[in-house]
């Protein structure tokens, strides 16, 4: 993913890029979380939702340091703080504060309500012991992360059945902003998770390198060839399409469109296709992973990172796959440490993202010098690599390295405090995930597929994605991750 994003109707030119805003917010959350190591619980007021049969017992503050808030109080405070901070961010991104705040209020209400519904015991309880504890005779065993699916479905219903309402939410439907903030926070969570098993963690990261080769050097040329020779598409359409299907969806398509100097509408057109198909993948692939790969959780996790396009959807699929696969394992008496599957999906995706700037530069060089060498037109410049580099990855790397240094440098006694501190930050990460899921749903208007001329484009995307990308991704995930299991929960 590069700095490019799907354009949102902005009231003014952005004062900061979305990536920098995401890095600022993510690092801010990380620093606030660390304050608890100094005795100041700065994030304990965040709302958490536990699995429930009696809704009045579900909500609670993240920390026992805020007992007077109660569940509803912590929900209200969480909403107010998020609305204020994100409205200020929207201002920096050139949006109208009032318009954003109103839209975000609706987005937060529906997204968090979806999360709450997903924690209902009939959806979330996993093991027979859980079912007995909650007094339920049946459950879909989705864990409380089934709330992600509820949020996605709620978004899809609004996008496809209530388009006028979806339009009014548009200002706060920013899946890329939300997922970038979540990824920056996720860096710290992954570090704390992996610190106890550093050898395994570094081995997994090394294997993530295969993802880069696969996305750029295998997927891209084949999809481009299919688009050009098989479907007869123009170069201007084929290159962003190949990047959209192969690399990281929306932002890759936009970065490639810019690199080859395509008309700005082309990558936007491709982006709408990417989002629709990403939603289909999020709904289907985790279920396939649970059905056929429950014995190989990390293969399933890497597969989500390789096969599902756009960062938000890939991490969404990784999150759902993690909950489904771990639920199935738990029902069979195997309790894996949480977080490892999501860490593998995130690693694979971030590795792929890192090289989008380099790839865009290579394409820019070829297009401006060989394919479309117009006299006087600007040539590819090396600085484009940096310009297109996804800056939010620097935030991810910063929280990862700082949290890892802290985890490795602390004693056994204080490592528990660090884990608790990052756990509070992770509550916000989950909320940003829910907002991402809901936003992806709201952006997925399936009626676009029936627009004039869109069928051939969709056909290429479907042939490439489900006929090739998904299965090659599975084979390569299997080659590199088969036989490796997440550590067991102690």
């Amino acid at each position: 993913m590069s700095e490019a994003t799907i354009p949102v109707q902005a009231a003014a030119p952005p004062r900061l890029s979305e990536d920098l805003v995401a890095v600022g917010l993510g690092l801010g959350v990380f620093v606030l979380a660390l304050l608890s190591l100094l005795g100041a619980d700065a994030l304990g007021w965040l709302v958490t939702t536990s699995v429930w049969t009696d809704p009045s017992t579900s909500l609670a503050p993240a920390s026992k340091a805020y007992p007077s808030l109660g569940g509803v109080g912590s929900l209200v405070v969480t909403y107010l703080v998020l609305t204020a901070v994100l409205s200020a961010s929207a201002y920096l991104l050139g949006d109208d504060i009032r318009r954003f705040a109103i839209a975000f209020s609706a987005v937060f209400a529906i997204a968090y309500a979806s999360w709450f519904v997903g924690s209902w015991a009939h959806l979330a309880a996993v093991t027979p012991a859980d079912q007995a504890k909650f007094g339920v005779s049946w459950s879909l065993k989705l864990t409380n992360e089934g709330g992600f699916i509820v949020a996605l479905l709620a978004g899809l219903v609004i996008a496809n059945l209530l388009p006028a309402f979806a339009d009014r939410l548009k200002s706060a439907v920013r899946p890329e902003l939300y997922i970038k903030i979540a990824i920056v926070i996720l860096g710290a969570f992954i570090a704390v998770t992996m610190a106890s098993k550093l050898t395994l963690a570094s081995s997994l990261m090394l294997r993530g390198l295969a993802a880069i080769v696969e996305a750029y050097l295998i997927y891209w040329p084949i999809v481009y060839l299919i688009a050009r020779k098989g479907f007869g598409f123009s170069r201007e359409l084929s290159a962003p399409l190949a990047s959209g299907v192969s690399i990281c969806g929306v932002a890759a398509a936009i970065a490639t469109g810019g690199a080859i100097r395509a008309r700005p509408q082309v990558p936007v057109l491709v982006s709408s296709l990417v989002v629709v198909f990403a939603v289909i993948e999020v709904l289907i692939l985790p279920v396939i992973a649970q059905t056929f790969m429950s014995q190989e959780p990390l293969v399933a996790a890497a597969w989500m990172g390789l096969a599902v396009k756009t960062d938000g959807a890939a991490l969404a699929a990784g999150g759902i796959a993690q909950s489904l696969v771990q639920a199935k394992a738990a029902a069979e008496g195997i309790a894996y440490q949480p977080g490892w599957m999501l860490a593998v999906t995130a690693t694979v995706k971030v590795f792929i993202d890192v090289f989008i700037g380099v790839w865009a530069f290579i394409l820019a060089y070829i297009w401006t010098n060989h394919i479309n060498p117009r006299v006087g037109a600007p040539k590819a410049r090396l600085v484009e690599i940096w310009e297109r580099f996804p800056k939010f990855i620097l935030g991810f790397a910063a929280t990862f390295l700082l949290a890892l240094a802290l985890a490795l440098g602390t004693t056994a006694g204080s490592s528990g405090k660090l884990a608790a501190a990052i756990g509070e930050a992770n509550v916000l990460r989950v909320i940003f995930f829910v907002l991402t899921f809901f936003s992806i749903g709201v952006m997925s208007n399936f009626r676009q597929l029936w627009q004039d001329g869109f069928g051939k484009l969709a056909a290429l995307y479907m042939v490439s994605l489900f006929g090739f990308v998904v299965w090659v991704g599975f084979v390569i995930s299997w080659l590199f991750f088969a036989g490796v299991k997440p550590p067991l929960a102690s």
Partner: protein
Amino acid sequence: MPKPDLREATGAPEPLLPIEKKLIGWSLGAGLALLALLVIINRFIPLN
């Protein structure tokens, strides 16, 4: 933002230029070679 005319983009086919063939060939060749190398490394340094 007006959408591009898809009939134009999917209409008369543009021939595959030698540079495009080179891009496809080199990418795929390098990709397969690097992947084979990573598989071999993975065999020698297996995950544990």
